[in-house]
């Protein structure tokens, strides 16, 4: 019997190696796998490259992971947040590397990694600092730049529902980066609000099929907090 549901955070985090690239889903605190991030802090992997939309806020979650010196590089579209103190301190003192990527390009680079597309052309960023050093090509009269797939060794995902095959649904804006993080990551780890029996999820309504999911941890924390 296939059972991707793990019983403990330690099982969920087992085997994450130093130097891993970790893709973090979530947008604001909605659909963000906060407990898994805490688990990663506990787990201890170092020298991480983290890709996420933001660069953490306050002194918890991703910010805490950075503050502990565990993140070598961050790939994000928006390093600012309501309270970006940790990131800014580390960045100004040269203790963390930053790669700024337009939000749509991050999402598309993850999707490309999941879909077996190593490189693609996009118009986003042409004529800007984002295009410096990138291959340019004129196609049908418009200029594009080449972007690379962004593959995760590990992906951290938050779902609304999950079953033992790893099929997932999301709730409203909690979907955001979660499906692309799941498909782009070698090891996709999910925290889910609800565990459903196999067959309970409608085949037409499953958003992330279990083929993109490796481990599921039941974390019924309730609604996301304020921002």
């Amino acid at each position: 019997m296939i059972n991707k549901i793990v019983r403990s955070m330690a099982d969920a985090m087992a085997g994450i190696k130093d130097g891993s690239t970790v893709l973090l889903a979530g947008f604001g605190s909605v659909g963000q796998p906060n407990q898994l991030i805490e688990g990663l802090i506990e787990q201890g992997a170092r020298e991480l490259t983290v890709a996420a939309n933001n660069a953490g806020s306050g002194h918890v979650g991703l910010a805490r992971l950075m503050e502990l010196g565990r993140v070598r590089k961050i790939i994000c579209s928006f390093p600012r947040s309501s309270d970006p103190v940790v990131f800014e301190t580390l960045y100004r003192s040269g203790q963390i590397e930053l790669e700024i990527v337009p939000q749509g390009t991050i999402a598309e680079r993850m999707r490309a990694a999941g879909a077996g597309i190593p490189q693609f052309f996009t118009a986003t960023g042409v004529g800007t600092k984002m295009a410096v050093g990138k291959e340019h090509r004129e196609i049908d009269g418009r200029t594009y730049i080449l972007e690379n797939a962004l593959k995760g060794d590990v992906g951290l995902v938050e779902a609304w529902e999950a079953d033992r095959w790893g099929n997932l649904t999301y709730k409203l804006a909690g979907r955001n980066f979660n499906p692309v993080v799941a498909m782009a990551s070698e090891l996709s780890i999910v925290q889910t609000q609800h565990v459903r029996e196999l067959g309970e999820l409608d085949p037409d309504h499953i958003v992330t099929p279990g083929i993109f999911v490796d481990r599921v941890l039941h974390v019924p924390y309730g609604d996301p907090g304020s921002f």
Partner: protein
Amino acid sequence: MSEAATMFKPYSRPQMAKLAADDIPEGWYVNLGIGIPTAIADHVPLDREVIFHSENGVLGMGPAPEKDKIEPWLINAGKQYVTLRAGGSICHHADSFSMIRGGHLDLCVLGAFQVADNGDIANWATSENDTAPAVGGAMDLAAGAKRLWVLMDHTTKDGTPKLVNKCSYPLTAQRCVKRVYTNLAVIDVADIGFVVRQMSPGLSFEDLQARTEAKLHLPG
């Protein structure tokens, strides 16, 4: 600045938003940037159906929720709580940006630091050496939407023009702004450059030009 400068009445923020809102026809798919542009939605009556999109996979946003009716799982790209109209839908981030980058949005309205008269926009960093500039979805929106409008003050607080010959700040995208709504005027970006469509009450063309670095044109 001339004497006359004291005689005119700049558009207020709500007036600027209303001017832009009135130019949006029913049926358009529209993304409103974080900040002032978000207010445009308040000036589109619900019975003129305009479909508002947010980068985080929300299509068909309605008015802001009443405080006791907040849905904690429904936010926009500015991380404000929003509502979904009947007909609204949810998708993931890559699908959401497919709408943007695939040219499916009829309109995006952004704030900006500078707009040049060739349509270049700078709205994400105020220095080449900004320590950690935050681009978010602005470059995708500027390059991807069918048309880009900008809503911003005409000058900085110290009077420096924001409608320029060439952006001095790092670009967000090239040659994509089609119209600018400022507190002083509504200005199209045409092949010849900035064309003034409308000015705030009491303002003369010369006064407007004095507050604008790039050359302004009158229509026709």
